[in-house]
């Protein structure tokens, strides 16, 4: 069964450092997303990506965040200068059609120290 894969599963970084979270969406999907879940809180939308550009983004997705689809398979989330409050589980997701169910990866636990 096709699945979304994310690497690494756990990333520890020092405050102020840049991190890149990687995702391989399901191959025939066209819409890609990043969500995050701070421990004990709800799953929050960060950004959606379609046709090589951002289609929507939330208030959380400020100038410190960027996304890229550098080749035909990977979808990355970059945080330029991490803050303590960026510590969370980051989930990548993809879907084949607009507004249909999104399939999530296992997540990357980001810990900023």
């Amino acid at each position: 069964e096709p699945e979304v894969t994310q690497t690494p599963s756990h990333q520890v970084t020092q405050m102020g450092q840049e991190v890149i979270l990687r995702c391989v969406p399901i191959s025939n999907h066209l819409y890609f997303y990043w969500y995050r879940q701070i421990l004990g809180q709800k799953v929050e939308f960060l950004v959606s990506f379609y046709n090589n550009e951002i289609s929507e983004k939330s208030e959380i997705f400020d100038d410190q965040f960027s996304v890229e689809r550098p080749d035909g398979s990977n979808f990355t989330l970059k945080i330029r200068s991490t803050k303590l409050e960026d510590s969370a589980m980051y989930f990548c997701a993809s879907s084949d059609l607009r507004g249909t169910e999104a399939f999530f990866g296992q997540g990357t636990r980001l810990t900023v120290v």
Partner: protein
Amino acid sequence: DQQVKQNSPSLSVQEGRISILNCDYTNSMFDYFLWYKKYPAEGPTFLISISSIKDKNEDGRFTVFLNKSAKHLSLHIVPSQPGDSAVYFCAASAENTGNQFYFGTGTSLTVIP
């Protein structure tokens, strides 16, 4: 701004009985609703969805009911099994929110053998 609410953080049910998980929403433009199941240290897994043109969708042991006038949906699991123990999130999207899914805070279901 909590557009999707799950007011019960936890629910315990005996094996074999019915589990009913509830979700309320505030945005009357939402037209597509989903339930996701999440185990610890894993990403959300799509369970079942319903569009606003229906009031019920059934898939095996899982049934989702939508009451548009009350802005309420529920997930029924019958019979409940110990393997159903997980956190359940409801999510919603609308034509004018594009690809963004709004998640509730989740309900932790424990099915007692």
